[in-house]
């Protein structure tokens, strides 16, 4: 089986870094316990983490629409993943660009199937949670103005045409993996991907009515902070879970992830303090997300000091990017998905090359690449390829849906709010 062959390659190269941990073909209960837990943590990131993080940022009249979008995407992406997504991303006998269809409907994934040292069912689930959160991240850019049905259509098509293939390229054995592209936990697959689709969406959909003159302050920042905290704790499943085992690699990934988050937060806070005179809670949690998104691709490769540098860089760069997108370019990426996830994810991919083999980093994934410079080029190629594919296909999907059923609610519906007009309910009743 091609996929396992490729996975084995990764395992071998990881094994070099982990002396004392024997590669096993039998189930390890500790690894299984950790992967079960990690899967739950990543689902928790979306439900309710991201839903609350985003929900608090919109206006009262749209809060349910955001929760509904996150929730329904989670359900739909899960079923699509079972039906065909998993096999596109990890199916056996694939080409360089997508997996084979041998695992459609999870054919052959039984109770005894293993993926390394834990059940394949858990690997399916773990990867599913990534397939859930990525399209859910995108909705932040077109919040408060898209029709529910069009959002569902977009998310489904995007999952199958962008997310699943890109996952195959990077993790499933596709061409980027073959080249030695390093993305430990999803800097390209999740963050660049979601960020670029968000940018395309924001530009294509246009601004919300009243932007940027009418104030559209977050309706409930306590909700946003709650969601942010859940993202933080869940992210350990995301990054340390991507070690696919309960070992030293997972431990180091947890440590650098945490350092990245803390450093990103403090960097953003500092920028606000300097620039606006006061630090804000929305600022610090945004810095946290930036730090986490940026450390993600590097989390299995760098050491603690690498994590610190990445976190600080994330806070500064994404702060600047957020200002730029909003003020210079006047793009209404409503919840700042692109400057935080797109820019952060890309930055992380590049910094991975620079920090993987210095400051306590774990060295290079691929033995064929031996210098930071060469790896940097690979990272550029990988990041840009994902961004390009995502941008083009996302644009086409929007174009098609717009032509066939329309993307945006009417002006009146936008004024009244999506909760009532799309879902006949309201978030709060006195």
């Amino acid at each position: 089986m091609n996929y396992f062959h490729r996975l084995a390659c990764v395992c071998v190269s990881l094994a070099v870094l982990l002396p004392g941990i024997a590669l096993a073909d039998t189930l390890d209960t500790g690894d299984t316990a950790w992967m079960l837990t990690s899967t739950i943590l990543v689902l928790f990131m979306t439900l309710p983490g991201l839903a609350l993080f985003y929900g608090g940022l919109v206006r009262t009249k749209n809060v349910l629409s955001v929760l509904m979008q996150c929730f329904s995407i989670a359900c739909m992406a899960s079923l699509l993943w079972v039906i065909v997504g998993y096999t596109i991303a990890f199916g056996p006998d694939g080409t360089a660009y997508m997996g084979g269809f041998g695992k459609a409907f999870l054919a052959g994934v039984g109770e005894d199937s293993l993926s390394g040292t834990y059940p394949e069912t858990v690997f399916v689930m773990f990867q599913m949670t990534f397939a859930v959160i990525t399209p859910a991240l995108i909705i932040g850019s077109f919040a408060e103005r898209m029709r529910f049905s069009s959002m569902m259509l977009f998310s489904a098509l995007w999952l199958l045409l962008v997310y699943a293939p890109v996952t195959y390229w990077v993790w499933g054995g596709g061409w980027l993996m073959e080249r030695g592209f390093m993305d430990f936990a999803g800097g390209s697959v999740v963050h660049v991907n979601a960020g670029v689709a968000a940018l395309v969406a924001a530009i294509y959909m246009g601004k919300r009515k009243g932007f940027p003159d009418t104030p559209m302050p977050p309706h409930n920042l306590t909700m946003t902070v709650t969601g942010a905290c859940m993202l933080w704790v869940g992210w350990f499943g995301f990054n340390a879970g991507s070690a696919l085992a309960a070992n030293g690699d997972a431990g180091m990934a947890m440590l650098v992830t945490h350092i990245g988050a803390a450093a990103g937060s403090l960097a953003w806070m500092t920028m606000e303090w300097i620039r606006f005179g006061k630090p804000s809670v929305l600022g610090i949690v945004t810095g946290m997300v930036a730090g986490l998104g940026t450390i993600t691709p590097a989390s299995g490769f760098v050491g603690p000091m690498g994590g610190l540098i990445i976190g600080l860089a994330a806070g500064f760069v994404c702060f600047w990017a957020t200002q730029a997108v909003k003020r210079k370019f006047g793009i209404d990426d409503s919840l700042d998905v692109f400057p935080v996830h797109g820019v952060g994810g890309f930055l992380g991919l590049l910094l991975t090359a620079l920090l993987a083999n210095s400051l306590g980093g774990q060295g290079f994934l691929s033995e064929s690449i031996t210098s930071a410079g060469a790896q940097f080029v690979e990272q550029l190629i990988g990041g840009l390829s994902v961004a390009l594919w995502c941008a083009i296909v996302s644009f086409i999907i929007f174009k098609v849906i717009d032509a066939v059923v329309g993307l945006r609610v009417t002006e009146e519906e936008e004024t009244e709010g999506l909760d009532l007009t799309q879902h006949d309910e309201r978030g709060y009743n006195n």
Partner: protein
Amino acid sequence: MKLITAIIKPFRLDDVRNALGEVGVNGMTVTEVKGFGRQRGHTELYRGAEYVVDFLPKSKIEIAVSDELAERAVEAIVSAARTGKVGDGKIFVSSIEQTIRIRTGDMGDSAL
């Protein structure tokens, strides 16, 4: 009868209520309102988007009083609500033609 409407700073509410009690006004209705006037609002910043908030939280007190009591009530409000800083608020006095107590059907001053 008079209707006295006072727009005051919310944190003076308890003092005003006590001051009114002392002059014999034992009923009132309070609404949370937003006021716009000379007092400067504040700026809120969300991820670099700057919102100037001109409307400030105020409490609106409405009391119906007999004509005789009106003046003393106004004085009580003024002295209890005054901080001396801009934004202390206003008092409007207008006349009421009739008052009814729902529970008993009492009318006029005895309904207060």
